[in-house]
């Protein structure tokens, strides 16, 4: 296997006057040419991780390697300007006193190639012809692309993006993130980007790393993250999910909504199963075990919230033709035929 573009090993960081590690024993490896999303709620340590990789913060312990070169570790700290990284900030941070061309060419020392490289970078992001504009004369989406072009222009080993789309409005965001993904793939750039938006992480990332309270929860493909979450936190954070207690009876696993579609002799006591809204279905029944407590219209589907007799609530997705009123007594049934994730406490069990 080739050398990873970024390799973090056991990185720990605590800020002064705080009682917990902002980042604890953080391990991460990003393959060259791939896009890795760092996903987590605010305060989860994802931005700290990015800033440590960039060289704006130094880890308390652990090592960081970029392209196989040790850039932070015991007795060694390479400053950000010598790490060959590219950075795109949430607020873009375009130099307000410089033109678009001067911004994009800022990182190119060699004057003989600067013009050529700036034109190329601007062409990549589709902004050819705007060279002479000042940053304040551009729209938000254009500023974001200039920031991207500026970071890509020196051909960094890895591109780091900190919440790059959060300053754009909803409609523009979807369009821009597709464009950015295409540009990164076209240029073969290794990219690490931080986001708190799961849709964005699942769409953009070849792989997704989920963080919570400074600890890495799981690194996997978007599909694995969604379908087989590694911890209960990931299960709750990604998508909609509810939990029901699981009982083992003669090699079969049962819940109040029915039997799970696989046998088990070993499932621990007290386990709970993760159910997505499309794993369940409901039908009106006077003898049902739940009552509809809420209904959200979502266009082609309804999302029902059902309060179960056992005191739990589950959310169930139904086709828009199946319209029931709040207060209807319903029977909840498991219809999924795939294996689902089970947890005891916060940990995944088989």
């Amino acid at each position, binding site marked *: 296997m080739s050398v990873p573009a970024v390799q973090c090993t056991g990185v720990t960081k605590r800020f002064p006057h705080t009682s917990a590690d902002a980042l604890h024993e953080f391990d991460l490896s990003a393959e060259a040419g791939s896009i890795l999303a760092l996903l987590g709620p605010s305060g989860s340590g994802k931005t700290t991780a990015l800033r440590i990789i960039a060289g704006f913060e130094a880890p*308390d312990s652990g090592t960081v390697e970029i392209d196989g070169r040790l850039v932070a570790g015991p007795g060694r700290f390479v400053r950000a300007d*010598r790490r060959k990284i590219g950075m795109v900030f949430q607020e873009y941070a375009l130099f307000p006193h410089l033109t678009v061309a001067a911004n994009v060419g800022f990182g190119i020392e060699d004057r003989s190639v600067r013009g050529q490289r700036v034109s190329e970078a601007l062409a990549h992001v589709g902004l050819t012809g705007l060279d002479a504009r000042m940053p304040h004369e551009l729209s938000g989406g254009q500023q974001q692309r200039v920031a991207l072009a500026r970071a890509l222009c*020196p051909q960094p080993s890895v591109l780091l993006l900190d919440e790059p789309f959060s300053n754009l409005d909803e409609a523009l965001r979807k369009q821009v993130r597709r464009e950015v993904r295409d540009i990164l793939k076209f240029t073969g750039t290794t990219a690490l980007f931080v986001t708190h938006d799961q849709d964005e992480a699942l769409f953009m990332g070849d792989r997704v790393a989920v963080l919570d309270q400074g600890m890495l929860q799981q690194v996997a493909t978007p599909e694995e993250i969604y379908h087989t979450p590694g911890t209960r936190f990931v299960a709750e954070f990604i998508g909609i999910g509810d939990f029901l207690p699981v009982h083992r009876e003669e090699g079969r696993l049962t819940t109040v909504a029915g039997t799970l579609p696989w046998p088990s002799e070993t499932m621990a006591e007290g386990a709970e199963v993760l159910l997505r809204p499309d794993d369940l279905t409901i039908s009106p029944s006077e003898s049902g075990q739940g009552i509809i407590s809420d209904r959200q219209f979502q266009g082609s589907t309804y999302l029902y919230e059902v309060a179960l007799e056992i005191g739990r609530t589950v959310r169930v997705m139904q086709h828009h033709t199946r319209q029931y009123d709040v207060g209807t007594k319903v029977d909840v049934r498991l219809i999924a035929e795939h294996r689902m994730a089970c947890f005891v406490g916060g940990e995944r069990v088989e």
Partner: protein
Amino acid sequence: MGAMQTTVPQTGGLLRRMLGLGGVPHAGRRRAPAVLWLPSVAVAIAMVLPLVYLVERSLDGGGEVVGLLWRMRTAEIAFRSAALVAVVTVASALIAAPLAWLTVRTDLPLRRFWSVVTVLPLVIPSYVGAFLVVVALGPRGMLQGFLESLFGIERLPDISGLWGAALTITLLSFPYTLLSVRAGLWGQDPALDEMSRSLGLGQWKTLWRVTLPQMRPSIAAGSLLVALYTLSDFGAVSLLRYETFTWAIYLQYETAFNRALAAGLSLVMIAAALSLVVLEAQARGRSRYYRAATGAARPASLVQLGPWRWPAFAFAAAVTALSLGMPLALLAYWAVRGIAAGETVELLWGNALNSVYASGLAAVVAVLAAVPVVVFTLRYPGRVSWVVERLAYTGFALPGIAVALALIFFGARFATPLYQTLALLVFAYVVLFFPQALGAIRSTYLQVSPRLSESAMSLGKSTTSILWRVTLPLMVPGMLAGGALVFLTAMKELPATLLLSPIGFGTLATSIWAAAEEAFFARAAVPALLLVAVSAVPTAFLILREPRRGQ
């Protein structure tokens, strides 16, 4: 590859930890580069040098100074100073607060015009104001002459003393409060006023219950400037024979020649200045210092004055006439009289050039010294930068005469080659006015996101290169404003100039003073007019720079 990396030892040195600079790998903050912290620490030390030396000097006489201070009617001097400060500060606030509100928030006729001209009295030095007061309102002044021709009044009550000094200083220093309150009003969120109106309060009740309470911090901040200005004023109180700290110190130094006692008095005055700073912090209370609220882009809707427009208009006109119109008219009149009587302007060019040269040097040095301090204190928070920032503001509470005395002592004892040189004068200006440069540059730099430096760093630029190519260009507006402020104030500065000017180095300030002290008013008027004219240039620049939201 080795040359590409900066190696930092895992365990930081003891000294470095004591200085709060912490080694990079474990301190959680980046270490400031030497190009920043070295000059910053040097500047901070230079700023407190005069203060430290004053203390050392007054301790020289052992307990003797304390005894002398007790005998010397110090309490009386302190009481007189306090009375003057109190009267001027209150009077300034009473003029400035309504004027600020009228020019920012109401439909006062000629609003823009008033907001410019009411700031202009700042260019008139207090010693010029004082001699004009004596000339116009003195026992046998112009008013008396006018009244005599009408009613045969031969003598007016003496204008000297507390009321004359208070009148003079109030009319010249209220713009400090005005500027502060206006900035505060611009920063207020207009949505608050609209909210109040939507809750059913009329515009006058809104003024009283919403706008005015929010003006409190900016009134306190402006009043502090006025109070410190009054306390350290030397020109007006000397010409109007009102013995406050500054004049007492000057007399002690010039006549009695007891330098230890002068130093002791200076320390007492500095203590008074510091207590004013503390008092302001208390008065400001828990409300936040005025700062432009983010997103208050919409101008507030103007209060309709209705029939009150014309009394308001008269108020603005009266303040302008007294503080600017009359002084300029009187100056022009006496200058013309002086020239008719054979006063020459030619001799003054040299002095004008000296004024501009010394003040210009001070402005350049102050700005250059302020830049590293601003970057260091804002970007590298820590114990060292905390101390540096506090020390850098020392000059704010140091009266000119105290700094001048300290430097004279220092120059005479330790730096004889510097004694009586331009360098020492410029250094005094820089110590005194450094906070102005610092404040202007700081507020510009606060708007420069740290992300910009980090972007430049991620693009492979070194710290020095970032300073030149990103930080400095973005700080230029603040540097110009700070330089203009220092220049303006240094041009007017009297006691430091009087005590520290090299022999034969006359300035406009010293020539005005020499003439006014001898009551040669016609002779004083010409350089005074010249001084005002030169000061008008940086003032115009500063006024054009003032934000015009709410227009």
